[in-house]
C-alpha cells in the first residue's frame, strides 16, 4: 500500500511543478515546448493514476470483502489537541475513480488544446493554468480531511476563474469570470461555516472519522439546536451550499452558462467533467454522515436536484448558442447525480445503496461523453468560427469524424443502449423509482427532454439547412480528432464496466440487474425525444417556430432562463447595491470614515503633541523612564 501513497503524492507534485515551470519560465519558451511540457506532465499523471486505481481495485484496496480507505498525512497546523489541520492523501473507491476521470479528461484536453489553441497569444499561460487546475482538482479528490479539501476547493475556484477569464481583453469573458468567482465564493462561505460548525461539534476534520459508521461520532448525542434545527443539519446543509455553488444547483447555477466564455477545451475539462462534479463528490464523500446524522437534508438535496434538472432541461431546449445548450445540459445531468445521492440509502444490500453507486457511475460515464460533446462543439466552432446554431447546418459532410463522435455522445446522453449513458441513467431511474415516485416521474420527463434538446442541437449543427460558409469548413488535425475518437471509444465501452462491484457506499460488492419495468420505458422516452427532434429539425421546417409560438409565455421565459439573471441583477443592483449597500456606504462615508478621520485627526494631533517626548534630549528620556517606573509601581502596589 505504501508505494501507492507515494505515487499519489507524485500525482500531485507533477502538475504543480509543471505549473511553476510554465508560470515562471513560460514566457521564455516557445509555444511548442510549453505545450509539450504540460502534456507530458499530464501524461505521466494519467499513467500514475491508472496504476494507482488499477492496483487499488484489484490488489491492495480490498481487505476481505470490503474496499477500505487508505490515508497518510502529517500534521500541518496544530489548533487544539483534537483539532488539527493535516495534509495528506486518501485512497478509496471514489477517489481512485476520480483520479481516472480527471487525469483522462485532462490529458485529452491537453492534447486537444495543442490544436485548438494553436497560435493563441498567451499559449504558455494557458498551459500553466491547466496544470494548476489539474493540481487543484486532483488535490481536492485526494484530500483526507475536509479542511484540505476546502483549501483545494478554493484553488479550483481560482484556477477556474483564471481560465474563464483567459481572453482577458474581452469584456464578456472578464465579466463571466468575475461572476463565476463571486457566485461560487459566496457558496463557499456557506461551506466554510459548515466546516467550522461540523468540526466544532465533532472535533475532527478527518474524513475517516467523519464517515466511520462505527465510530464515536455516530453514537454521540449532540442535541444542540439553532433556530429549530440541529447543528448537524445546519452544518451539512451549509456544506451542501458549497457543493451546490460548484455544481451549479438551483439557484446558484447562474455562473455556469456564462462560464462558457472561456476557451472551449476549458469548458470541457472544468465545466463539464471535473470541477462541476466537485459538489457531487463532496456529498458522496460525506454520504454516511448525511445518511445517518441528517437524512432530511439528503431529501432536500434530492428535491433541489430534481428541480434543477427539470429547469435546466427546459431551458436547454430554447438556447441557440451551442455551448450554452451544453452548459444547461451539464447542469441538468449533474442534478441527476444529486438526485441519485439524495434517494440513496447506505449499504449494498439489494436496492439500498443503488443511488450512491448510480450517482458515481453516472459521474463517471457523463465525464467522458460530456467532455466529448464539448470537444466536438469546439471542433465545430473551430471550423465555422461561431457559437450560434444559426451559423451552422449541414456540417456532417465537412466534419465526418466530429459528426460521428458527436452522434455517439448524443445517443449516450439520450440513454440509448448500448452506450454508457443508458446504463448509468437507468440505475438512477431505478433508484428513484424505489424511493419516491414523484422524483421518478420528474427524472423520467427530464430523460425525454434531454434526448430532445440534444438531438435538436445535433440536427441544427450537422443537418438542417446548409449555411453559406465563407470558406469551406475543414476537419481539424489529429491532435483534435484523436481525443474525440478516444473519448467516443470510452463512451461506447464504459457502460459495460460492472461498476457496482467496485464503488458502493460501504465498500461491499453489490449485485445489480436490469429492471425492465424501468429500462424499457426510459429507452422509449429517449427514442420519443429523438423522433420529435428529427421531425422538427432534420429538414428545415417551420414546425419549431409554430411550437414556440404556441407555447407563448413558457417559451419566452425558458429562453430567458426563467429570468434568473434578471432576478439576481434586481437583487444585487436594486436591493443590495441600492438599499443595503447604499445605506452602508452612507454609514461608511460618514460614520466610519468620520471615525477614521477623527482618529487620524486625533492621532495626528496626539502624535504632534507627544512628539516633544522624542526630543533627543537624554535628560528628558531618563525623566520619563523614571516617572513611568514610579507610576507603574504605584499602580501595582496600591
Amino acid at each position, binding site marked *: 500500500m505504501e508505494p501507492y501513497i507515494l505515487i499519489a503524492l507524485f500525482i500531485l507534485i507533477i502538475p504543480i511543478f509543471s505549473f511553476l515551470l510554465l508560470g515562471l519560465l513560460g514566457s521564455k519558451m516557445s509555444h511548442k515546448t510549453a505545450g509539450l511540457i504540460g502534456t507530458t506532465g499530464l501524461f505521466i499523471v494519467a499513467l500514475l493514476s491508472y496504476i494507482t486505481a488499477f492496483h487499488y481495485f484489484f490488489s491492495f484496496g480490498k481487505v476481505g470483502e470490503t474496499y477500505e480507505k487508505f490515508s497518510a498525512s*502529517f*500534521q*500541518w*497546523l*496544530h*489548533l487544539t489537541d483534537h483539532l488539527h489541520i493535516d495534509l495528506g492523501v486518501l485512497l478509496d473507491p471514489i477517489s481512485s475513480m476520480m483520479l481516472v476521470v480527471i487525469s483522462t479528461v485532462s490529458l485529452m484536453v491537453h492534447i486537444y488544446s495543442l490544436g485548438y489553441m494553436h497560435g493563441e497569444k498567451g499559449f504558455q499561460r494557458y498551459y500553466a493554468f491547466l496544470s494548476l487546475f489539474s493540481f487543484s482538482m486532483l488535490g481536492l479528490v485526494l484530500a483526507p480531511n475536509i479542511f484540505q479539501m476546502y483549501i483545494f476547493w478554493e484553488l479550483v475556484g481560482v484556477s477556474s476563474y483564471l481560465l474563464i477569464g483567459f481572453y482577458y481583453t474581452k469584456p464578456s469573458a472578464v465579466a463571466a469570470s468575475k461572476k463565476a468567482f463571486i457566485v461560487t465564493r459566496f457558496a463557499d462561505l456557506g461551506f466554510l461555516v459548515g466546516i467550522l460548525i461540523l468540526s466544532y461539534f465533532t472535533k475532527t476534520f478527518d474524513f475517516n472519522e467523519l464517515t466511520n459508521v462505527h465510530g464515536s461520532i455516530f453514537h454521540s448525542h449532540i442535541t444542540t439546536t439553532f433556530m429549530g434545527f440541529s447543528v448537524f443539519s445546519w452544518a451539512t446543509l451549509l456544506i451542501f451550499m458549497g457543493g451546490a455553488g460548484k455544481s451549479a444547483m438551483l439557484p446558484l447555477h447562474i455562473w455556469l452558462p456564462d462560464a462558457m466564455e472561456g476557451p472551449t477545451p476549458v469548458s470541457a475539462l472544468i465545466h463539464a467533467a471535473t470541477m462541476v462534479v466537485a459538489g457531487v463528490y463532496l456529498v458522496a464523500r460525506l454520504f454516511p454522515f448525511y445518511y445517518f446524522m441528517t437524512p432530511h437534508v439528503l431529501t432536500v438535496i434530492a428535491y433541489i436536484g430534481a428541480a434543477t434538472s427539470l429547469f435546466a432541461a427546459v431551458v436547454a431546449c430554447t438556447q441557440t448558442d451551442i455551448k450554452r445548450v451544453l452548459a444547461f445540459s451539464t447542469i441538468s445531468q449533474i442534478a441527476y447525480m444529486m438526485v441519485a445521492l439524495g434517494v440513496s440509502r447506505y449499504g449494498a444490500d439489494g436496492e439500498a445503496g443503488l443511488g450512491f453507486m448510480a450517482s458515481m457511475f453516472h459521474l463517471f460515464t457523463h465525464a467522458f461523453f460530456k467532455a466529448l460533446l464539448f470537444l466536438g462543439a469546439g471542433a465545430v466552432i473551430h471550423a465555422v468560427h461561431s457559437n450560434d446554431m444559426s451559423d451552422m447546418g449541414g456540417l456532417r459532410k465537412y466534419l465526418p469524424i466530429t459528426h460521428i463522435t458527436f452522434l455517439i455522445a448524443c445517443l449516450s446522453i439520450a440513454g440509448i443502449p448500448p452506450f454508457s449513458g443508458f446504463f448509468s441513467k437507468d440505475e438512477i431511474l431505478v433508484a428513484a423509482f424505489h424511493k419516491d415516485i414523484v422524483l421518478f416521474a420528474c427524472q423520467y420527463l427530464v430523460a425525454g427532454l434531454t434526448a430532445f434538446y440534444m438531438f435538436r442541437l445535433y440536427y441544427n449543427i450537422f443537418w438542417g439547412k446548409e449555411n453559406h460558409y465563407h470558406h469551406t469548413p475543414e476537419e481539424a488535425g489529429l491532435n483534435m480528432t484523436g481525443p474525440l475518437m478516444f473519448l467516443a471509444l470510452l463512451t461506447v465501452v464504459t457502460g459495460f464496466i460492472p461498476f457496482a462491484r467496485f464503488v458502493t457506499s460501504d465498500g461491499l460488492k453489490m449485485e445489480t440487474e436490469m429492471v425492465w419495468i424501468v429500462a424499457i420505458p426510459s429507452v422509449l422516452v429517449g427514442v420519443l425525444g429523438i423522433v420529435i427532434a428529427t421531425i422538427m429539425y432534420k429538414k428545415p421546417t417551420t414546425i419549431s417556430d409554430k411550437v414556440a409560438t404556441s407555447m407563448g409565455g413558457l417559451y419566452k421565459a425558458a429562453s430567458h432562463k426563467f429570468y434568473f439573471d434578471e432576478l439576481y441583477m434586481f437583487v444585487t443592483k436594486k436591493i443590495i447595491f441600492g438599499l443595503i449597500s447604499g445605506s452602508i456606504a452612507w454609514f461608511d462615508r460618514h460614520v466610519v470614515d468620520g471615525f477614521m478621520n477623527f482618529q487620524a485627526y486625533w*492621532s495626528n494631533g*496626539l*502624535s504632534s503633541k*507627544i*512628539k516633544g*517626548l*522624542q526630543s*533627543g534630549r*537624554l535628560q*528628558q*528620556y*531618563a525623566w*520619563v*523612564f*523614571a516617572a*513611568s*517606573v514610579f507610576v*507603574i*509601581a504605584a*499602580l*501595582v*502596589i496600591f
Partner: protein
Amino acid sequence: MNIDAILLMRTEFLLVFQIIFLIIYDLFASKSGRKGLDVVACSLFIISTVIGFFPATTGSAFGGMFVADAMNGVFKSVLNIGVILVFLQSKTWLNNEYTEHKKAEVYILIISTLLGMDLMISSGHFLMFYIGLELASLPLAGLIAYNKYSSESVEAGAKFILMAAFSSGMLLFGISLLYGSTGEAGLYFDTMRNVIAPRSLQLLGMVFFLSGLAFKISLVPFHLWTADVYQGAPTNITAFLSVVSKGAAVFALMVVLYKVFANLFDYWEYIIYGLVVVTITVGNLFAMRQHNMKRFLAFSSISQAGYIMLGMLAGTPAGMSSVVYYILVYTVSNVGIFAVVSILENKSGKHDIGDYSGLYKTNPKLSVAMMLFLFSLAGIPPFAGFFSKFFIFMAAAQMSYYVLVFVALVNTVISLYYYLLVVKAMFITPNDEPIAYVKTDFSSKLGLAICLSGTLLLGIVSYFYSYIQQFAYGLF
C-alpha cells in the same frame, strides 16, 4: 570543572574561543589573510551554530548559577541565526576604506554581546543575569559608535551607553530590593520562585527589574532612546539591535517571568497588558510619521515587540513557542529589510523613504524582496509573518485575552498602512532620479536568499513550529 560542564556550556565556550581566535587572527594575519577575515569569522560562526542544533545535555553548572535546558538551546539557536544573517549583510559595509582596517572589531564585539546574551538566558542566579546583561550592553555601545567620525553615530553611542547605564541601575536596584526582602533565598532562581510573594517591597523590586528589561526590548514608555540610536548607528548594527538584542531580552524576560515571578502572575499580567497596548499603539502612531527609513523601522520594531509580549502574556507552552517562533520569523523578515536598506545605503548613501520612489524600475529584485519582507511583517498570508501573528493571537485568545487580541488586530490594520507606504513608494510613486541599479555581492545575496526562503517557508512548512513546540514549557 569537568567535561560535563564544558558540554553544558558548549555554546558559550565556542563563542569565547571565537573571540580569542579572531583577536589573534586580526593581530597576526598578513594583509591578504585579513581580507579573508569575513569569511573566516562567518564560517566559524556558522559551524558553531550548527553544533548548537545537536542534542545537548541538560543540567546546571557553577552550583546552579548556569542552567542549560532544551528551550535555552532553541533560544540561542534563534539568536545565532540572526547573527549569521547580520554577518552576511555586513561584509560590503565593512570593506570600505574607512572601516576595512578595523573590521575584526565588529565581529569580536558582536560575538561578545552574544556571549552576554547567552549567559543572561542561561543564568540561574540574579547576579549571573546581571553580568550577562552588562556584557550584552557594553560592547553594543562600541558597535553603535563604530563610525567614530560620524557625529550621529557617536551621539547615538553616547545616548545608548547613558540610557543603558540608567536602566541597569534601575534593574540592579530592583534586584537589591528583592534580595533585601527575601535574603535567605540567596538570589537563586529556583529558591526565589518559592519565597516570592505579593508584598510591596518585592512588587517594587519586580517593577524595577522589569523596567530594566523593558528598556532592552524597547517597550513604551521605555523606548525613547530607540529611534535616536537606531538612526545614528550603522545600519547593520541597527539590524542587530532590532533583532538579536531585542530577541535576547525577550527570551531573558520570559525565562525570568516564568521561572521566578510565577507567583506574581496576577500582578505582572496587568503590567504587561498595559505595556502591550501602549507599545503597539504608540509604535504604530510614530511609525506613520517617519520619513527616515531607519527611524521608521525603529518604531515598527517597537510595535512588533508589543505583539511578542502578547504571546508571552499567555503563559502557556503554546504562548512560549509562539513567541520564539514569532522572533524567528521577525528575524528573517526584519534583517531582510535591513539588508536591502544597507545595500542601498552603501551604494547611494540614501535612507529616506522618499528616496525609494521608483526603486522598482531600477532594482526590481531588491524591491520585490523588500516588498515580501514588508508583507511578512504586516502579517499578510501566506508569508511566515501571518502564521507567527496567527499563533500569537491564538495563544492569547486561548487564555481569553479577547480585548487585547482585538486591539492588536486593529493595530495590524494600521501597521499595514505604513508598511504599504514603503511598497507604494517603491512600486507606484514616480521619480525622475531613482536610486541607480545596485550590484549586490555574494554574501548579501546569500543573506537575502536565506531571509527570503525563511519568509516564504517558515510558515507553510509546519516542521519549524513543531520543532520549537516540543521544547516549550508554560508558566504553571
